[in-house]
């Protein structure tokens, strides 16, 4: 009997992590639906009524990719970080560490489950958005691919966060102080072309700008930045996260004493 990769362990972790989502189905699904609806009411109806179009796209439709990202970034990070932090906190991680489970199995299980949940939420949000605005996605396959890619990248990021955190507060700090501001400033609700000269340059230093615009391009065929740059940066972020996690497992940092 050889164990090149413990496939059953991947499935076991994946199932276990998703079970947490089903157990809290109401909060998991209802919360993003409500949040998205509120954004549409506030931004789409109240403000959008005065804005009409951005670069030929109705304002209500224009903000959909940004709203999607807001949820994907927050949920991927939160789920993956919580998924690995909870066993560290309760001590049940001893089982994972003593099992024939390596970095590949752990990542596919935890990150796969967190990303799956984000993608499900993305679908739910897209359906919710439909009730408020009419929109068509020009490149649906690319859009789906980009959503999955971003969900994976930020689930990996969340996993790192969950390894690093040594308290529940730290789990919250990065999403609240870094991710949410960057998303709001990242052109979720406006085109960075609307910004005055120097601020536009500053905005381009915000990585979320590339995510929002990359996704917007797959939706409407136009964006503030080049889609290739956006996709390239996302892949690079994903690769960096994988490298960091590989290092964590090799050195046992925060996992093994």
């Amino acid at each position, binding site marked *: *009997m*050889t*164990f090149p990769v*413990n*496939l*059953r*362990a991947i*499935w*076991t*972790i994946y*199932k*276990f992590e998703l*079970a947490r989502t089903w*157990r809290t189905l109401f909060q998991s699904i209802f919360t993003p639906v409500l949040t998205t609806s509120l954004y549409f009411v506030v931004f789409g109806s109240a403000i959008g009524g005065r804005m009409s179009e951005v670069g030929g796209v109705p304002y209500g439709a224009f903000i959909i990719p940004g709203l999607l990202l807001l949820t994907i970034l927050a949920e991927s990070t939160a789920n993956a970080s919580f998924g690995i932090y909870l066993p560290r906190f*309760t*001590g*049940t991680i*001893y*089982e*994972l*560490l*003593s*099992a*024939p*489970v*390596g970095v590949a199995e752990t990542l596919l299980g935890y990150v796969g489950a967190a990303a799956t949940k984000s993608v499900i939420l993305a679908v739910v949000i897209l359906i919710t958005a439909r009730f408020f605005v009419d929109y068509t996605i020009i490149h649906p396959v690319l859009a789906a691919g980009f959503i999955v890619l971003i969900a994976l990248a930020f689930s990996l990021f969340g996993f790192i966060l969950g390894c690093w955190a040594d308290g529940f507060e730290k789990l919250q700090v990065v999403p609240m102080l870094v991710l949410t501001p960057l998303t709001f400033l990242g052109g979720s609700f406006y085109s960075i072309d609307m910004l005055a000269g120097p601020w536009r340059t500053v905005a381009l230093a915000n990585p979320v700008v590339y995510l929002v615009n990359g996704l917007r391009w797959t939706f409407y065929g136009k964006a503030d930045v080049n889609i290739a740059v956006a996709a390239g940066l996302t892949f690079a972020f994903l690769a960096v996260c994988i490298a960091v996690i590989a290092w964590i497992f090799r050195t*046992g940092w925060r996992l*093994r*004493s």
Partner: protein
Amino acid sequence: MTAEAILDIQGLSKTYAARSSGTGTVALDGVDLQIRQGEIFALLGPNGAGKTTLIGAVCGLVRPTGGTIRAFGLDMKRDWRKARAKIGLVPQELSVDMFEHVLLSVNHSRGLFGFAPDPARIEDILRALSLWDKRHARISELSGGMKRRVLIAKALAHEPELLFLDEPTAGVDVELRRDMWRLIGELRQRGVTIILTTHYIEEAEEMADRVGVIDRGRLIVVDEKQALMARLGRTEAKVGLARPLQEVPPALARFPLQLVDDGNALLYRAGGEEGGQDRAVADLVKALVAADVEFRSFDVRQSSLEDIFVDLVERKPA
């Protein structure tokens, strides 16, 4: 390494890095240990002696700073997947998924170790641990003793051939402790090799085939329990005298005797190689009678493993 060694530890060391400047903490200091297939091995030692670190190093929770560990003839650094699939661990802390149900949690453990579901096997394990009726209960609702049973069920879920029990009976009531001992006995019948750490020396005395004593990261003694007790055990006999004596009668000078209780009693104390010999005590009685020493009482006490353990650990200078 002997042919039958299921676990072979050579020169195992672990130094925990210092938080700031200064030297790290040495938790394990060149530990050599061979565990035989099918035995129950009890690892004794005071708190902080390195028992849990030693177990952690074998199970993958602790990264050793030196030495080699081979289990089932496999190098734990290279063939850890194969080896770990055959090793089970019951940790000391009650670390359980509070929100999970018993059955789900135990099935989860089996899957994590790469084994296909086997409901019949899991039912057997849960029944043996009196958990079957609680299989749908949330773990958070269970008592401490029941949680400990869940941890054992989880460790047994993948049918390990080598089982580590870190303080399995710490903080459990007498009844559960007896259950646990019975279960460990049954596991041994099935051929499972068991390594347990314990504070209750009575536990080691009751169950272990061999005993190891660890202190300050070093294994100071490893031996068969019986041999250890014969070698290091002591016999004490206290002779209550009818009339107080001023000194030990010359006729009894060949015995290791001293006067105690203001001359009202004679204390016989033989240790090490001389200890544990009933013959010597019988000779003492004859000699007392021959020397016309009248006595009212005669108490003989064999030292327990606990006395030996305390001696061993306290004998070591700091």
